[in-house]
Structures are given as structure tokens and as C-alpha cells.
């Protein structure tokens, strides 16, 4: 096993996180976890198909960043997009229905697990090719600056949060877009979820500089390393990056050190990750850590957290029932949505 990187130390004394924020984040993380566990169950029961990439273990990153955004901000995701969509506010019913291929899904059953979209919730997508979402996110960020400067629109600057993994950081689009974002001071936050593995390619075997946040310096933008298992730490760095973006000062690269608790996808036999590595990361479960944080800081009581778990389980069950009962897309609509007029 490669020596684990030391997770950056975090001191919560200065956090802006309130009790209300804390409960909101906790609920969001639990939703992410419960939803994904339910997906695994439904996949093995033959209710959903294709490649399904689950987010277990990485919840602190989606919740800590996306819950810090305003509803007018944009989120751009990858093939591992269920939980980003949920955090962005896409109802669990619509995400589950999409995974079931139903017409009530957020992409009307046309997209599937890797192509979740919601214009209403400013979710730019689910992009299945590694790194291809980064330019699209850059376009949304450009649009925000353009509206203010070229179209004279007022109001707060919209920020785009662009998520991708360690594997994407060796792709040209990552470098090209960091360059343009910094060059044009675009309101974008690049969030690398470094879970150490691009399917079976260990991060250290793929990159000449494993500390991804250091790559920001080449583009003159701040690069921040954060413990991606600690939602309060993620929330804090997101706040700083958001303020910078909203003030028109440009992008930030956040490298969140995290770990996926399951294989790359439900089709991955997960044979390469060592027992020792898993034993290092599994105890750092972000939900357990955050529960302990909320309790020790008197931000929540045991009963409140239990109630959240109960409510979320019910919500996920409801999402499954909704997906089950929803109709299939009408075969007569097979060719619909090809062109804007359809």
C-alpha cells in the first residue's frame, strides 16, 4: 500500500456553520448514503440497469459544497452523479425514477444513472466521459460573468461548482479549463474528489504530481487541500471559494481527499484496493464523524439525528414506490427531444 497522504488538520473553532446548517448538511449526507444503498439493492434485484456508480463515503464533498450554494448557482457532475443531483435539490423521486428508466425521471428516462439533468435545479448534468463536464461548467461560469458585463444584468454573481475525480486531472480539459477560468476570472469552483482510484488505476500510478491542489499554482489560482471526510472542513473551504468567486476574483481549485466505500461501479469486482487501505478509510466515515461533531458541539441531540435517519429512510422508500408506480416512456415519443422544437 502506498503511504496515505496526511489529511490536513482542521480546526472548527472559526467555522461559520450554524446549528440549522449542520442539520441540513447531516440530512443531505444521510440522504446520499441511504439513496445509494437503496440503489445497490435495486440494482441487484434487477430494477435498474447499466453502469451504476455509487457515492458512498464521499458524501461530505457533495453536501459541504453544494449546500453552501444559492439556488441560482450551477452544479456540474460526472457519471457518479446521483448524490450531486440530490444535494442540488432534485427530488429523490425524480432521481430514482430516472434510474428505473421511467418517464417521471429527471431526464424522462432518456439519460439514466450517468446522465441526470435538471434545468430547474441548475444541474448541468451528469457527464459520462471523464473530464468532459469541465468545459461545460466553464461555459456556465462564463455566462454568469457575461450577463453582468456584456448584458448589464445585476444581482449576485452566479457561481458554478464543477465536480470531477482524480482521474480527470490528468486530462487536457482540466488544464485547459483551469487556464481559461483563471485568465478570465470566472466564477467557478473546481472540486476534485480525489478518491485515489480511477477504476483500477491508482492515482500515484497515473500522475507525476499526486497533490492535485498544487496544480492550481501553475494557473495563478488558489489550490486548497481539504479533508473530504469532514463536512465542516469542506463547508468552510467552499465558503471561502464562493466568496472569492462571487466577488469576481475568479476560480478556486479544491482537492477533497476522500474514499469511495464501494467499487468503481456495481459491476466492479474491486480486486485491487488493499484491505489495509480500506481499513484506513472506512473508520473515517463522514456521516459518523459529523454525527459525533454535532453531538459534541451541542448542535444536535441523538434523538434529532435518529429522526433524520427515519425520515430519510421513508423518503427513499417513497422514491422507490414512486419509481415503481411511474409509467414507462411512451414508445410514440421515441424520437422526441432530438431537436428543440420536439
Amino acid at each position: 500500500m502506498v503511504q496515505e497522504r496526511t489529511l490536513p488538520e482542521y480546526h472548527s473553532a472559526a467555522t461559520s456553520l450554524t446549528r440549522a446548517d449542520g442539520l441540513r448538511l447531516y440530512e443531505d449526507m444521510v440522504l446520499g448514503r441511504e439513496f445509494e444503498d437503496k440503489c445497490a439493492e435495486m440494482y441487484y434485484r434487477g430494477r435498474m440497469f447499466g453502469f451504476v456508480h455509487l457515492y458512498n463515503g464521499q458524501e461530505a464533498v457533495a453536501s459541504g459544497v453544494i449546500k453552501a450554494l444559492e439556488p441560482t448557482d450551477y452544479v456540474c457532475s460526472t457519471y457518479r452523479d446521483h448524490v450531486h443531483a440530490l444535494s442540488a435539490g432534485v427530488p429523490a423521486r425524480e432521481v430514482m425514477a430516472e434510474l428505473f428508466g421511467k418517464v417521471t425521471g429527471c431526464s424522462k428516462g432518456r439519460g439514466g444513472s450517468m446522465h441526470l439533468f435538471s434545468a430547474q435545479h441548475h444541474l448541468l448534468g451528469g457527464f459520462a466521459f471523464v473530464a468532459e463536464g469541465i468545459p461545460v461548467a466553464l461555459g456556465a461560469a462564463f455566462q454568469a460573468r457575461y450577463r453582468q458585463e456584456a448584458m448589464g444584468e445585476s444581482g449576485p454573481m452566479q457561481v458554478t461548482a464543477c465536480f470531477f475525480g482524480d482521474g480527470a486531472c490528468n486530462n487536457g480539459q482540466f488544464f485547459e479549463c483551469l487556464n481559461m477560468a483563471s485568465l478570465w476570472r470566472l466564477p467557478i469552483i473546481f472540486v476534485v474528489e480525489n478518491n485515489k482510484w480511477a477504476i483500477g488505476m491508482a492515482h500515484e500510478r497515473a500522475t507525476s504530481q499526486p497533490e492535485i491542489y498544487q496544480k492550481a499554482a501553475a494557473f495563478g489560482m488558489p489550490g486548497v487541500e481539504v479533508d473530504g471526510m469532514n463536512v465542516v472542513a469542506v463547508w468552510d473551504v467552499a465558503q471561502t471559494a464562493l466568496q472569492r468567486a462571487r466577488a469576481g476574483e475568479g476560480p478556486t481549485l479544491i482537492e477533497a481527499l476522500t474514499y469511495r466505500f464501494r467499487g468503481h461501479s456495481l459491476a466492479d469486482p474491486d480486486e485491487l484496493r488493499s484491505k489495509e487501505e480500506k481499513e484506513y478509510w472506512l473508520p473515517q466515515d463522514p456521516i459518523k464523524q459529523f454525527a459525533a461533531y454535532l453531538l459534541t458541539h451541542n448542535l444536535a441531540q441523538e434523538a434529532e439525528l435518529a429522526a433524520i435517519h427515519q425520515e430519510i429512510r421513508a423518503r427513499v422508500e417513497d422514491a422507490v414506490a414512486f419509481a415503481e408506480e411511474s409509467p414507462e416512456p411512451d414508445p410514440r415519443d421515441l424520437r422526441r427531444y432530438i431537436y428543440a422544437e420536439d
Partner: protein
Amino acid sequence: MAETLLFNALREAIDEEMARDPSVFVLGEDVGHYGGSYKVTKDLYKKYGDLRLLDTPIAENSFTGMAVGAAMTGLRPIVEGMNMGFLLLAFNQISNNAGMLRYTSGGNFKIPLVIRGPGGVGRQLGAEHSQRLEAYFQAVPGLKIVACSTPYNAKGLLKAAIRDDNPVLFFEHVLLYNLKESLPEAEYVLPLDRAEVVRPGQDVTILTYSRMRHHVLQAVKTLEGRGFDPEVIDLISLKPLDWQTIGPSITKTHRVIVVEECMKTGGIGAEIVASINDNYFDQLDAPVLRLSSADIPTPYNGSLENLTIVQPLQIVEAVEKTVALQV
């Protein structure tokens, strides 16, 4: 009426649409200060500023993807491919993102995007700068593909493409930028999806587009002298094809020749012939002929280059051959 060169007709279209709609902007390599490699955006940055004439770094896949993101969020970008061949580097963004995303998103997003620039075989530019990407892109769902061929249609079609809510690949031809024509003073917009009957006739339907329209018209002069009466249709819209115009012509002449600059294999003509076979087979009095470029990388040598693309004499011979045939 004012005499206008084709590149200026395009420039007028962009200028008018940018003045009309502040969400329209241009991005690409050297579109701003340099004015575009064929001067289609010359000095527009002085009028509209650097943000609306956005000079990008040389990063085709990323700036094309960026245009998709801007289009998804409400702007109307025009990407200039300095040479359309460079957009092979952006094939993924044009295919997966521009073409398919509306469908995959179940109609969540529309992508009002124009990707335009010079394509086709120029004069000894070498293989990489002599591409005909329309053939490669025709299989991508969700794209519209348009080829202009005169200053008049270049201006009216580009304005329509900018106003269209779909991703439009807009092909100009590297050798047509200096064509001159008198254009109407009043504003006009042409339909994107209509073929143009350039010359009505009775003997044979010649389907062509872009620069080959002019080769066909040269051949027609010779053919007229020899008593032939061909119908010439400029396809304009390569995807979707305008069968409402093509179909009745086939039913009238019963003979078809496709003249194209793309390669024969997997070309625009290949698709047309297959569709004619599907829908108009009974109408034909002769096999459909395809005059296409040779299936080779375009050679640098001038003589070899001329042998690669279709010449007017070949069109004359093809018409004589197909009209003489009695089935």
C-alpha cells in the same frame, strides 16, 4: 443593392445578430483582435468588446464544450473553427454534448449554438486543412448541418442559424470567401431546412452543395450547349435533408446525380443514395450516380489535388451517360 464579398456577408450577418440580441457572442481562435483567419469578424471587437468577441487559447475541445455550457445557460454562442478540420479535436463536445445532450436530458436543456468556419479542399493546403467534416458529423443525432455557397445564402442562412435553438454546424468553403454578389439592402433571413432549386430542368436532378454547386453550374453551361436540361439543387441543409424539395425533383426527372466534395465512403451522397433506394426506387430510370472526392487524404501536389476532387468535365460526362441510359 450593394456588391458584397461572401466573407463580408457573413460578417454582416454576425454584426446584425449581435446588435439585435445581446446574448449572441463569438468565440474561437483569433476571432477578436485578429478579425478571424478569413476576416469574418474583422473589427467587430471594437464595436462589441473583448467579451463578445472572445479570443480563446488554442484549446478546441474545451472552448467548444464551454460554448455548450454557455448555450445551456441561455447565451447564443457562435464558435468559429479557424479551420473546421481543427474541430476534430472537439468531436466529443460536438457529438456528446452539443448533439445528444438535449435528448439525454429529456428536453431539460436546449443548445442554441452555431459552429461555423471554413471547410473543404482549398488550394494545396495539405490533408489536415482540407477536411470535409460534414460527412463525419452527419450521423450525430441532434445536430443541424448547413453548407452555404453564395454571399446571398451565406448571410441569410447564418442569421437563421444564430436564431435557431439547436446546435447548427455551419460550413463555409475556404475557396468561396471572395465570391461577390449584390445583396438586398433590407434585412432577410433564409430558412435553414430548405434546399435551393438553382436551375429548374427536366432531364436529370443534380444534387450538390457548397463549392461543388459552382462546378456543377460550370458543367451546366457546357451541357446547355449540348441540348441538355438538368435540374440543379443546392442541398443547403445536409442534416436533415430537405426531401420536400429533393423528392418531387426525382419524381420529375427520374435520374439523379450527386456531386459532392466529401469522400465517397460514408459521405453525404452515400446517405442520399440509400434514402433514394428506400423511398424513390420505383421512380428511377437509371442508377443514381455519385461523383465524390477520392477516398484518400488530400494530396499537397496541385495536379494530384485536382484529381482528388470532382471536376466540371466529369459532371458533364456523368449527365450525358445517365440521360442516355434507358431502363
